[in-house]
C-alpha cells in the first residue's frame, strides 16, 4: 500500500498526487513511469512520474480522470492509499546538450513533458516550452514551466488564454521566425503528437514523442504495449516510451488504443463515483 501525501485538482478532472515511494523517488529519471493498481480488483495502468522529491521520499503523478480507473484514482484523497505501485519503468529520456530544445505539452501531456524539460535545462539547453490546453482552465504547470524554461508559450484552442490556436501554430511561428531549434519533444493526445511530427518533418528537426499504449505488466513480459516504429515492432514499456516521432506509426497506436473502448465505457457506467452527476456527465461526454 502506498500512501497519498497530498491530492489536489489542478484543472477540471485533472488531479495532482504526491505519493510516498522513497525508492522510486531516488531512482526515477525523466521520462520514466510507474504502473498503479487502485484496488484489489483493479487494472494496471501506466502513469508518468511527473516529479520526485528525494528528501521527502515522494513522487508526483498527474492524472486526468477519463476511464474508470483514473476516475477512481481521482476520487482518492490525501491520507488514503494506492494498492499497488511499481516503478520506475521504461527507458529514461535521452538527455544531452542539444542546443535549443522545445518541449510541447498538450493537456495532461504537459505533466509528462515537464520532467524532461527540467532535465534538458539542467543539461545546459536553451529550453522553450509550449503548453497547450483546450481552454484556460485546462492549461497546467505554467508556473512550474516558467521556473525552469527560458521561454514559455501558452496556447488555447478556444483563445480563452495565451495564444489562440494549437501548439503547432506556435511551433510553426517559431520555425518561421528562423529560430534555431535542435530538438522538439512533443507529448499529448495522439493527434497532437502526429501534427507536431508533420510540422517538424519538413524541416528535419529531431523530434521525440512519448507513446501511451495500453499496458499490462510494464516489464516486457506480455507484448500488449507493442507499437510500430520504423516498420518494426517495439515493446513501448521497455524499448520506450520515447521514440523518434518521424518513424512512429501513429495510426496503429491509435487503433490499438481503441481495442477495449466498449469495455471502458461499460466499466465507467458501473463506476459508482462519489458524485453521481459527475458520472452521468462524463459518460455523456464519451
Amino acid at each position: 500500500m502506498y500512501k497519498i501525501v497530498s491530492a489536489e485538482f489542478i484543472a477540471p478532472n485533472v488531479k495532482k498526487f504526491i505519493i510516498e515511494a522513497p525508492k522510486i523517488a531516488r531512482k526515477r529519471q525523466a521520462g520514466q513511469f510507474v504502473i498503479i493498481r487502485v484496488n484489489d480488483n483493479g487494472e494496471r495502468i501506466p502513469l508518468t512520474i511527473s516529479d520526485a522529491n528525494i528528501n521527502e521520499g515522494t513522487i508526483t503523478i498527474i492524472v486526468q480522470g477519463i476511464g474508470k480507473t483514473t476516475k477512481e484514482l481521482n476520487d482518492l484523497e490525501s491520507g488514503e492509499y494506492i494498492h499497488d505501485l511499481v516503478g520506475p519503468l521504461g527507458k529514461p529520456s535521452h538527455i544531452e546538450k542539444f542546443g535549443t530544445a522545445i518541449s510541447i505539452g498538450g493537456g495532461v501531456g504537459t505533466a509528462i513533458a515537464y520532467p524532461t524539460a527540467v532535465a534538458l535545462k539542467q543539461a545546459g539547453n536553451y529550453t522553450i516550452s509550449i503548453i497547450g490546453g483546450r481552454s484556460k482552465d485546462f492549461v497546467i504547470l505554467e508556473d512550474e514551466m516558467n521556473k525552469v524554461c527560458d521561454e514559455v508559450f501558452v496556447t488555447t484552442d478556444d483563445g480563452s488564454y495565451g495564444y489562440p490556436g494549437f501548439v503547432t501554430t506556435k511551433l510553426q511561428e517559431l520555425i518561421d521566425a528562423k529560430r534555431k531549434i535542435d530538438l522538439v519533444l512533443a507529448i499529448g493526445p495522439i493527434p497532437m503528437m502526429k501534427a507536431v511530427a508533420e510540422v517538424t518533418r519538413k524541416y528535419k528537426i529531431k523530434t521525440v514523442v512519448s507513446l501511451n499504449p495500453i499496458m499490462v505488466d510494464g516489464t516486457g513480459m506480455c507484448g500488449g504495449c507493442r507499437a510500430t516504429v520504423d516498420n518494426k515492432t517495439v515493446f513501448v514499456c521497455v524499448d520506450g516510451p520515447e521514440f523518434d516521432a518521424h518513424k512512429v506509426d501513429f495510426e496503429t497506436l491509435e487503433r490499438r488504443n481503441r481495442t477495449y473502448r466498449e469495455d471502458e465505457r461499460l466499466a465507467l457506467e458501473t463506476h459508482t463515483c462519489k458524485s453521481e452527476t459527475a458520472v452521468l456527465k462524463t459518460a455523456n461526454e464519451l
Partner: protein
Amino acid sequence: MAKLSNKEKMKIPRQAMPEQDSAVRRNNFEEVNLGFTEELAKMEALRCIQCPKPTCVSGCPVGVKIGDFISLVAEGEYLKAAEKIKEDNMLPAICGRVCPQEEQCEVKCIVGKKNEPVAIGRLERFVADFERQHVGIREPKLKSKTGKRVAIVGSGPAGLSCAGDLVQMGHDVTVFEALHELGGVLIYGIPEFRLPKEIVKAEVESLRKLGVDFQPNTVIGMSDTVDELLSDGYDAVFIAVGAGLPYFLNIKGENYNGVYSANEFLTRVNLMKAYKFPDYDTPVFHVKDKNIAVFGGGNTAMDAVRTSKRLGAKNAYIIYRRSDVEMPARKEEIHHAKEEGIEFIYLSNPLEFLGTADGWLNGVKLQKMELGEPDASGRRKPIPIPGSEYILDIDMAVVAIGNGSNPIIQKTTPDLTYTKWGNIIVDENTMKTSKEGVFAGGDIVTGGATVILAMGAGRKAAAAINEFLNCSN
C-alpha cells in the same frame, strides 16, 4: 488387506482420476481434475511392485523417493508420505498437477512395460492435497539464525523453492517480485482450471510464515540493481526471473487488434481475472461466439485455447506447423483439449494476418506443410507445400510459440555471462554465475522448461548458497 503378489498387483488396472465432465467444464474455470479419493489412491498405490532397483526415480528431475512414498500411501500413512515427498520436492501439490510425468517418472515405471504405469503424479497430488486439507502445510523446523541475508529475484517455482530451503537453513530471505502477486507463471500463466491459485497462495503463505520477506511490485534492475542488492547488505543473490519475453511470428498484420501473445492473453484472464469483467476492471477480447486461433503446440498453447473455449469461443483452433506426434504439450492436456471441443489443425503455418479497414483481425492466411528430414531438435522439419495457401476466418489470435529471455537483468547486470539468447550461464551443479555471490536458475538459465526443473534448480542453488555463506564469513 492381505499382501498381494506382484502378479495380483499387475492385474489391478490404473485408476482413473475423477474429472469434471467435458461438457460442463468447458463453461467454467474450475479445476478439471478432481483428484483421487482415499480408496482410489490406496488402490493405485497397491499397483506399485516396489522394484528393488526402481527406474522411476531416475526419471524424476529431483529424485523423489517414489517407491517409499507410494508404499506409505498403500498403508494409509498419507501425512508420512507427504513428508517423504517433501524431502526432495517442495511443491508436490503443484508438481502433482503440472509435471509431465508421462515423460519423466511414469515413462520409466517397470509396471508400465507391460501394463499402464503407476499413476505417480496423481498419487503425489493426492498426498499433497490430503496434507493441505487435513493439517495445513506443516512448518518444518528452522535452524538458528545465521545473520546472513539472501535476495531472491523472481517468485516463480525456482525462487520460491530456493527461498524455502534457505530460510530453513537459518538465513534471512527477501524475495523481490515484479508483479503485484507472487508465484510467477504459476499465478499469471497456468490457468485456474489446471492449477487453482489457492494452492499457489497456500505455498506462498507457508513461506511467509517461515519468515520469508516478500517484496512484490519491485523490478530488480529498474529499482535496485543486482549490484546494489549486494552493496546494500545482501550476502548473495539468486536470479530466478523466468523467461518472460514473448516471441511473435513476425508476419504481416501482427499488430491488428485481436492478436495477443499467450502471455498477455493468459495474464489478462488469470492474473487480472478478466473472465470476471466488469467485477474486475481488466478487459479481454470478447471471445464469445467468435473464432479463435492459437498458434503453437506446447502447454502454453493448450492453456490459451482451452481458456478461450471457457470464455465462450464458437470455434477454437490449435494451429501447429508439425504433426500431432511432434507436439510438445503434455498428452493429458491435448486429450482434455480435444474432449472440450478444441479443433487441431496440424501441418499449417501462418503467413499473414488479415484485418478490416479499421484494424481488427478477421483472418489468417495459412500454408500447408509436409514433414521432411529431422532437424536440429530431432523432430521432422516442416516444409511448405507450394500453392497450398488458404484463408481461415478468425476474430482473435494468440501467439504461443515460446519466450525469449527478458533483457532487464542483462542490461543492468552486464558483467554476468549470457548465451547469445540472453540466458544466464551457470555451473550446472551449483547454479553459480560468473559473478561472486550471484546464482541463477529456472527458465532464465534453461529457456522455457518445466516447473520441476525450475524447482530443482532453486534447491541446488540454495545448497550452494548455503555453502558459499558458511565459507564466506
